């Protein structure tokens, strides 16, 4: 699954036996977030990662981006070891993470400025991306003057503006209302079809993963490992009607079962604790009622 044996081009992005541990000095422990995780993403492929909440999806994305070094294993880009400062990857953040003191256009230009593009050129490019994500007329607005959906468009445009080969997206539509989310998903597919980027899209929404991706990788609970990979062979361009097909529903149910079977240990413990305390509460309820 890693290096091709037939001598074809290597996958665009590979995670090879990735492991990541965090020290938690305050709690006096060491937690393993990723454990021997291996996956490959082809050129122009749209890969979705789904996993139970807290399983380490975001950490995996940060390692893939180079924000955080892995404890073990490595990240390869086009078969080469990725440098932490490689410019072929860009991140779309979960909470839009816009700079509140910058206008929309200045926010979109930020990534380009970081790559030492001259400010006038960066702003000119930002204006083109403003149009591409449907925000004409909002270029001089500040983030707090934009709706959540518009902020995510800026977030997306900021990443697209640096023209990365690989787009890493961390639940970018999770905080949006259902309607806005569907619009954004459809629009993102449209943009993706035009730009032909390799996408790694983290989500906890199974239907979102199936609707958007070429392949869906289902992760286990923490520490995250690949549990199953599902090829989504729905024709493109897709619209939301694919969600009503029998295959889509069966697949959704299947993934849901996979995820519920691997609830992370702390969640199981948390649920047990909740049960205990609610039992306790019920026991105490009557004396308190009498008082």
């Amino acid at each position: 699954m890693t290096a091709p044996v037939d001598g074809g081009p290597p996958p665009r992005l590979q995670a090879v036996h990735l492991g990541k541990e965090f020290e938690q000095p305050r709690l006096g422990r060491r937690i393993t977030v990723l454990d021997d995780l291996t996956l490959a993403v082809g050129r122009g492929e749209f890969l979705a990662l789904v996993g139970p909440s807290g399983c380490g999806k975001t950490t995996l994305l940060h390692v893939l981006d180079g924000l955080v070094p892995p404890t073990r294993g490595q990240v390869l880009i086009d078969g080469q070891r990725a440098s932490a400062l490689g410019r072929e990857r860009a991140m779309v953040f979960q909470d839009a993470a816009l700079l509140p003191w910058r206008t929309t256009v200045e926010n979109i230009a930020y990534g380009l400025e970081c790559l030492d593009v001259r400010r006038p050129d960066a702003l000119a490019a930002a204006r083109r991306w403003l149009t591409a994500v449907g925000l004409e007329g909002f270029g001089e607005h500040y983030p707090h003057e934009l709706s959540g959906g518009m902020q995510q468009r800026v977030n997306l445009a900021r990443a697209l503006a640096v023209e990365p080969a690989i787009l890493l997206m961390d639940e970018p539509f999770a905080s949006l209302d259902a309607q806005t989310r569907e619009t954004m998903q459809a629009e993102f597919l449209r943009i993706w079809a035009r730009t032909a980027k390799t996408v790694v899209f983290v989500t906890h929404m199974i239907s979102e993963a199936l609707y958007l991706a070429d392949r869906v990788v289902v992760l286990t609970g923490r520490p995250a490992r690949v549990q199953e990979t599902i090829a989504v062979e729905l024709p493109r361009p897709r619209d939301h009607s694919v969600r009503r097909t029998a295959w889509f529903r069966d697949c959704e149910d299947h993934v849901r079962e996979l995820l519920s079977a691997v609830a992370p240990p702390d969640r199981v413990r948390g649920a047990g604790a909740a049960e205990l305390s609610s039992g306790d509460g019920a026991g105490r309820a009557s004396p308190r009622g009498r008082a």
Partner: protein
Amino acid sequence: MPEPIEHADWMPAADGHGPADPAHRRPRHPGPVARLLARQGRLLIGSASVGMFLAAWEAVGRSGLVSPLFLSSPSAVVAAGAAMWASGELMEHIRVSAGEFALGYLAAAGTAIPIGLAIGWYRRLEYAADPFLSALYATPRVALIPLVVLWLGIGVWSKAAVVFLGAFFPICINTVAGVKTVSHVHVRVARSFRASDARLFRTIVLPSSVPFVLAGLRLGIGRGLVGVVVSELYGASAGLGFLIATAGATFQTDKVFVGIALIAAFGVVCNEILARAEARVEGWRPPVGPAR
């Protein structure tokens, strides 16, 4: 900046249908007074409250209830001020005090901001500087005046040094806090876009520190003015603190008030200048306040 237009219920609703509740239909057109208040409320209410305070002071002063030796009155203070201005004496005091303040305050701002930024940015520097910052911030700077006079004499330099000591710490400590509270989300964005440390500092750390630096600069004005007055009380031949001290010692209450009023006015003007600067750089911030 234009005043935001609130949607009051006398305005037509945006959809052209008006509020459905008939109780809200009653037309309530504001009178000219209400409209003037809405537009110039800050200026009008502020001036009215100051005017009423001065009128009450004048009335008490004239009634003979309190000896003019203790209270004086606004008219007596204005008269004394005008006489001192005409003789050129007042200008000399203002010139001396303003010079001392400007020297000490600008030196404080010019050093405290870069030093605060460095302390906030480099953790080891913070470890080294923190004992001094905490100790000197907690020490009343008045306690240092004898030392400063010993080193610098009683001329303008010792006064400027006391102003500097007063203003430096609030500015520096606030700046450090500004750097340290920078949002890790924004730092992650900069790192993800491969920003260099220098760019991260310039594009994330500096803009997020601005409100803290400005708060420190405003606190520093108050502390600096304390420094001017106290150091002039200690030993001087001119200046507003000197004026207050000598006038007080010779029971010229009206002159004491002239000095106090001028220092207060100076503080207000400096604060207003900073508030204007703040409005310029912090214009992106949504307004904060209780719901109306």
